[in-house]
């Protein structure tokens, strides 16, 4: 009975979330105007009030929490980012948050706490900013669904895999295909999700030793898909390094 009550409450909260966000948005609009007029850093952007207000309004219509944009605005102002650049960055952030929101909605991923929802939106935005494309992200979630049919998607595992893709992409420029194959290999491997990021270190080590990118990615793919882990990859890479 209690469980049913909780589920009903959560459903109502979820259904009412656009209204709640809109109400919250108005609060943030006031906060934003206050910050713009009274804060020494905010005053730098006074001439762009209309544009920034418009940005907050359109974000509200798209159901994007204003808090996230406001944080980004404060962050940029603290770094003394020129207004034009900050506006461009905010617009891009809005786009990414919109994409993130769409993904969460499409896959029916729900959160009990608002903070968790905001954190996940922000996390997804960072992943998109790190170069993982929306389609790649969706394909990886699909793999996660396929590997555990009938159960809910372990979305955190997909996020961890994507974090590693961002790390790889910060070492080398990876194509979306390469990211998809790598992400798929991670999700289908027997590695513990917490150990995914160790592979980025190993990749860096091999690249610094001038093992070729394509060869290395293929090696990671085949080793992981055959049940291998860090030990087996280290063995393969050390062997190549020894031979050269």
């Amino acid at each position, binding site marked *: 009975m209690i469980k049913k009550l909780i589920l009903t409450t959560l459903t109502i909260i979820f259904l009412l979330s656009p209204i709640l966000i809109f109400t919250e948005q108005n609060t943030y609009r006031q906060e934003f105007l206050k910050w713009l007029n009274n804060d020494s850093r905010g005053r730098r952007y006074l001439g762009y009030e209309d544009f920034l207000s418009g940005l907050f309004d359109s974000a509200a219509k798209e159901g994007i929490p204003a808090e996230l944009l406001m944080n980004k605005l404060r962050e940029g102002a603290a770094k003394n980012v020129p207004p034009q650049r900050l506006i461009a960055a905010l617009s891009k952030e809005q786009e990414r948050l919109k994409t993130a929101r769409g993904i969460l909605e499409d896959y029916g991923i729900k959160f009990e706490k608002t903070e968790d929802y905001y954190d996940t939106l922000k996390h997804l935005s960072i992943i998109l900013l790190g170069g993982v494309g929306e389609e790649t992200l969706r394909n990886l979630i699909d793999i996660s669904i396929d590997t555990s049919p009938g159960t809910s998607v372990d979305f955190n595992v997909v996020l961890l895999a994507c974090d590693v893709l961002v*790390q790889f992409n*910060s*070492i*080398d*420029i990876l194509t979306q295909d390469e990211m998809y194959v790598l992400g798929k290999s991670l999700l289908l491997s*027997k*590695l*513990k999700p*917490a*150990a995914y*990021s*160790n*592979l*980025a*270190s*190993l990749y*860096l*080590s091999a*690249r*610094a*030793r*001038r093992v*070729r*990118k*394509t*060869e290395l990615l*293929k090696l990671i793919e*085949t*080793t992981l*898909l*055959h*049940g*291998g*882990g*860090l*030990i*087996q990859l*280290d*063995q393969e890479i050390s*062997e190549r390094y020894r*031979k050269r």
Partner: protein
Amino acid sequence: MSYIKVKSRFKTGIKPSVFLLTFLFIVSVVSAPLYGEVSLESGLELISSSIQSAPPIDISDSNLWIGVNWNGSHYFTDSLSLFADSSARVVGTPIDKIYEGIFAGDAYTSYRKEAFLIRWGISGYYDVIEDLSSQINTGGITTSAWELNSDILLSYGNYTFSVFLQPEIDFIYSSVTSTSFGAKAGAVVAVTEEVLLKPSVSIDWNSTDNTTITPTLVLSWYPGLPLSFQSKLGCSFYTDSTAGSDTPNIELNWSPELSLLFIRGVTILLDSNVNFKTYDTVTLTDGTTDTQYNPSLEIVPSVEFDFSLSDTLAIHSKLGMDFMHYTASGINDLSPSLSLSVELDF
């Protein structure tokens, strides 16, 4: 696994073009069924040899080089794969008038099934040096060498533990021809999810009557941050009959290595090699070789910057030095070096 390496040099009487064409032919035939990549690399290396006292600095060992590399792989099945690579490089040392050509190649095939890995490889090189600085022979002096090596790796393991055995055979043809047999056995233990400990021991028998036993311990740290660290500690015990002594010699080696990501596309590799030998040949400043043997300490630190400018263009740079100290005679040698190269992938 199969590994083929072929290094070559231009021999008097045989045109360099014959070697190049033969090489390209072999590469073309082998590469046909494989997915391959070709790259062109060119660079220069500035070496200042043996600054024992004061300038003038001797940079006669500095060289320029150009080379072509090819590598390919093919997966016959999910478990069975073939990797191969080959390279051809021409090195010119203009001040010393020494020119060198090297052909090298390797191929290995591996079969992985669950916890088992079997890999067989063959590698080799052919190397020829044309020394035009000789005053005795106006046509120059040509020396050549080649080496062929084959090994097999048998490994069994899981996520936390792995054991391996790797026997190998090596044949070297140069001024001294030798055949050696070796075997390495060891384990890899995942102490944590990011730290690997790799104890191993290898034994090598050489046809020139040397036997070497080398226990080694390697620590690898992959912390998940954009850095990694390796530390290799080895100790070789061997008898060197050419030294005229049956006393076992000891060689201690420590090689730490740190890889870092500086910014996107720029990696830094800091490494060092520290080597201590109880017996070593002393080379005097006048170029003659002393018949006495001294304990020696060699330290070779270097820093490498690799810039991946795009998917097809990379710049490699390396700044290093080689410091040699003979403890008994007090002789010190210091050779700093700087190399720069550009690599173009096709």
